[in-house]
């Protein structure tokens, strides 16, 4: 018999919907009844979901990585993308295609890219610390690097957009209800245009880690979101840059959705003392390579497991 204890949460998974949740104790662990009435399911019946802890999520991540390692041993080339079917990130379950992408030769429009320029982006937009009257709280830093395409060519005069939490781990987004302080001097969004060699450079503050509701006690490692256009529209990418040595890496289902260790490592910026300024700011370097989605590897026939 379940003892239902109702509680009201201000937000559901990742803060997107109001959720009313009942929790019952059973012999097998904690069971959660989700009574959400979201806008897309008016009148939906309660759905029984298991309240997951970190050990459950970590075990699922390990299983996905083991599958990847097994495929690598069978000859699959290394993946430089996340697995889109990655249930440890719970919101992904109904939002990923189940069929392999179709391989196509890009047409001329897909081999070109939209044009941005200094007419679109003012130079000051690359400094996230000067958008308000005062200085934002936190560790001031420069993040700089190069954007290249898969052939090693610079992505020149192209748009880079970033957004991030403040130093306390709070996003300015209205649905972020994490009870950490907002910073009146920090919005957390910036843009720049790469130079002729593909270099970009932002001045900002180091974002904090923040909690999300993927599972019990889930925390995202500190990161900056990057949106990038390449030399071709096929290279369009949105990703996240992380900071070296973050203890949350092994626990995070978003970072760990990339099953290849080297590919994960490439999302981590390097501390660069040359980018640090005396009495002013620290510096991190992060280079980006835009290659575009690749065909799914299919195990050759006749290879035996």
């Amino acid at each position, binding site marked *: 018999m379940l003892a239902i204890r109702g509680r009201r949460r201000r937000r559901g998974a990742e803060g997107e919907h109001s959720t009313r949740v009942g929790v019952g104790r059973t012999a097998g662990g904690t069971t959660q009844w989700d009574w959400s009435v979201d806008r897309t399911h008016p009148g939906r019946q309660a759905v029984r979901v298991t309240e997951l802890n970190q050990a459950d999520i970590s075990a699922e991540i390990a299983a996905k990585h083991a599958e990847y390692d097994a495929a690598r041993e069978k000859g699959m080339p290394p993946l430089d993308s996340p697995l889109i079917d990655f249930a440890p990130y719970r919101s992904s379950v*109904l939002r990923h*295609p189940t*069929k392999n992408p*179709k391989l196509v030769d890009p047409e001329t429009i897909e081999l070109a890219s939209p044009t941005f320029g200094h007419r679109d982006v003012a130079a000051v937009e690359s400094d996230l610390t000067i958008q308000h009257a005062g200085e934002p709280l936190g560790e001031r830093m420069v993040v700089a690097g190069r954007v290249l395409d898969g052939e090693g060519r610079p992505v020149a005069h192209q748009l880079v957009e970033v957004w991030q939490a403040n130093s306390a781990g709070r996003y300015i987004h209205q649905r972020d209800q994490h009870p950490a302080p907002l910073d009146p001097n920090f919005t957390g969004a910036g843009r720049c245009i790469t130079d002729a060699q593909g270099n970009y450079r932002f001045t900002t503050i180091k974002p904090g880690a923040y909690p999300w509701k993927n599972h019990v006690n889930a925390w995202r490692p500190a990161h900056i*979101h990057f949106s990038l256009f390449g030399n071709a529209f096929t290279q369009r990418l949105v990703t996240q840059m992380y900071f070296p040595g973050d203890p949350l890496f092994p626990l995070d289902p978003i970072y760990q959705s990339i099953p290849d260790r080297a590919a994960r490592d490439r999302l981590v910026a390097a501390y660069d003392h040359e980018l640090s300024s005396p009495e002013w700011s620290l510096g991190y370097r992060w280079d980006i390579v835009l*290659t*575009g989605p690749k065909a799914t590897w299919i195990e050759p026939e006749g290879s035996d497991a």
Partner: protein
Amino acid sequence: MSSTAGTAGQTVGPFFRYGLEIENGGLLVEPHSPGAIRLHGTVYDGAGDPIPDALLEIWQNAADGSIPTAEGSLTDRDGFTGFGRVHVTDDGAYEFWTLLPDADFISVVVFARGLMDRLHSRIYLPGRSDAFLESLDADERATLVAVATADGLRHDIRLQGERETVFLAFG
């Protein structure tokens, strides 16, 4: 084949609207101006429910088939830049105002909370086709071809499910 290992994508996350806002990003042309069409539809998940937090970008040829090269894709709504970006509404709906390109398709990229990596697809114009579209079976083809409406085109995108949209990898 790429010679350099690529940077992996990551989900656009839950809190991306303020970082990727473009004022009037869906208006490649003035609504109802001569030649303007309304390209609209809904983005659905695997349960058939609209996704309220997706982002779509389109990139297309001009009405004469040329590839737009003018600067100003973020700000210039006087000239035709060929690029548009919209956040879907709470009902998963999107709307662009654009020109019918002299081309077989409009290129589209989908981002969403819960979607690990961006997805590329194409929105084919009714009556147009190419070797790739013809290589698909009828059900797959139907997911890529827009439907003509009184004021333009309707095209739904399904991330999962029976009528899952065909997404692309590039050779």
